[in-house]
């Protein structure tokens, strides 16, 4: 009798667990690495905002779930998803094959270029192995920019890796870095638009090769959460069709788009 009870309890537990796995979310926790202006940052009043946040909230509203944003430092953001600290990542994460092995991506929702930023007074005109020799390059640890710079210039230049984009910008202003490499919109917001010193973009903005720069930003999910990803994809298509996407986009990038062209 006892054995039977155990077995049936076990069966119940398994059934509960599997139904939990395939459950339809009504509450989605989204991991985000703050600050990464203008994608995600806090206003002086402490309110979480940015392109990712606004678009994310809009998507959640469309698919009728309540969303909760959970802050997580970048270099642990994928393990955090795996260990169920949150159910999705919407934090300017570029879709690439390396990450695809671990997570499930939504359709791309944004495709920004990366760019090199240096002080206006810098003599750097281009980024080649010769011109970057002996220079100190700043990148955010574990980003695709880190991978790109490490593989391309790791043998000639010094690479300083930072946990947050903020620390990196601080060190740029402290003149500890000669040049840094990051997502163009973020560099625009934190360096070009800052009042502290003059910065400029060195060379062209960069979107190739695909091996590093992937297919734009996507929302990451655990692989088994295909249903959830589908719902987000449908909502993405919807906001792109009815113009809501453009509205949010223009609020954050209309000017930077002009500058990039």
């Amino acid at each position, binding site marked *: 009798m006892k054995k039977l009870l155990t077995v049936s309890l076990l069966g119940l537990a398994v059934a509960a667990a599997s139904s939990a796995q395939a459950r339809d979310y009504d509450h989605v926790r989204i991991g985000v690495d703050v600050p990464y202006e203008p994608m995600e940052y806090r206003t002086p009043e402490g309110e979480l905002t940015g392109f990712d946040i606004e678009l994310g909230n809009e998507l959640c509203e469309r698919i009728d779930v309540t969303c909760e944003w959970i802050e997580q430092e970048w270099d642990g953001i994928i393990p955090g998803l795996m260990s169920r600290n949150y159910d999705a990542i919407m934090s300017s994460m570029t879709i690439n094959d*390396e*990450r695809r092995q671990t997570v499930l991506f939504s359709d791309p929702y944004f495709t920004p270029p990366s760019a090199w930023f240096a002080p206006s007074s810098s003599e750097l005109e281009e980024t080649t192995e010769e011109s970057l020799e002996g220079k100190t390059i700043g990148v955010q640890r574990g980003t695709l920019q*880190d991978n790109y710079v490490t593989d391309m210039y790791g043998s000639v230049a010094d690479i*300083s*890796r930072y*946990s947050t984009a903020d620390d990196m910008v601080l*060190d740029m202003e402290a*003149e500890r870095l000669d040049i840094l490499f990051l997502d163009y919109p973020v560099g625009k917001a934190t360096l070009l638009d800052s009042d502290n010193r003059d910065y400029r973009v060195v060379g062209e903005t960069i979107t190739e090769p695909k091996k590093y720069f992937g297919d734009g930003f996507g929302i990451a999910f655990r692989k088994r959460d295909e249903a959830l990803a589908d719902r987000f994809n449908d909502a993405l298509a919807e906001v792109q069709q009815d113009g809501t996407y453009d509205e949010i986009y223009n609020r954050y990038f209309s000017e930077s788009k002009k500058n990039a062209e």
Partner: protein
Amino acid sequence: MDIAAWFDDLLAGNLIFTAQTLGYYWEGLVTTTQLVFLSLVIGLVMAVPLAVLRGSRHKWISLPIYVYTYVFRGTPLLIQLYIIYYGVVFIDGIQESFLWPLLREAFYPALIAFTLNTAAYTTEIFRGAIKSTSKGEIEAARAYGMSQGLMMRRIILPSAFRRALPAYGNEVIFMLHASAIASVVTLMDLTGAARFVYARYYAPFEAFLFVAALYLCLTFAILFFFRFLEKKLLAHLRPQS
């Protein structure tokens, strides 16, 4: 079964033991060793006179040293490192000063923070050892007509060093472990290498277990060295058989 083939199979497709990642770990090992070794040596050189002066009867000598060791032992090393690395930038004119070429590199602010921290602990360790010199030895030295300086050099310091050895060995190991925070100021130390591999390949277990093993090896090397020193220097204290 052929051991070499078995080993090849075992390592095939793994992310940690490639030439590139091992290169990072090696770089990290070199940085960690340099940082810890230099800060310990400089800290030790600073700590000996500080420990002697800390026992001075003159308040204006002993009090500043007391305040220094109190502050550096009373606050986390991580905070000290942040203040020294990110803080110096806010000192007006620092970028134009002759110190900037040093402070610009992450290595030297980290070295300064580690050195000041270990010097504070070591000062207190030696101070305690000096204080516990037995009265008899001091009276005997006085009876011989030794001056204060000679007595310090011949009697008090040598025996204090011996007594301080086990506690100092612990401090060396603590310092090695505390150095794991160096990567927050962009240094590629051992932990920095592990964080890099972790972030690049999303392989927390491999990256951190391997680096833990490396730290363990370093710790055992230090332990072994201090065992050896204690055996030599404290031979007279061991029970005679």
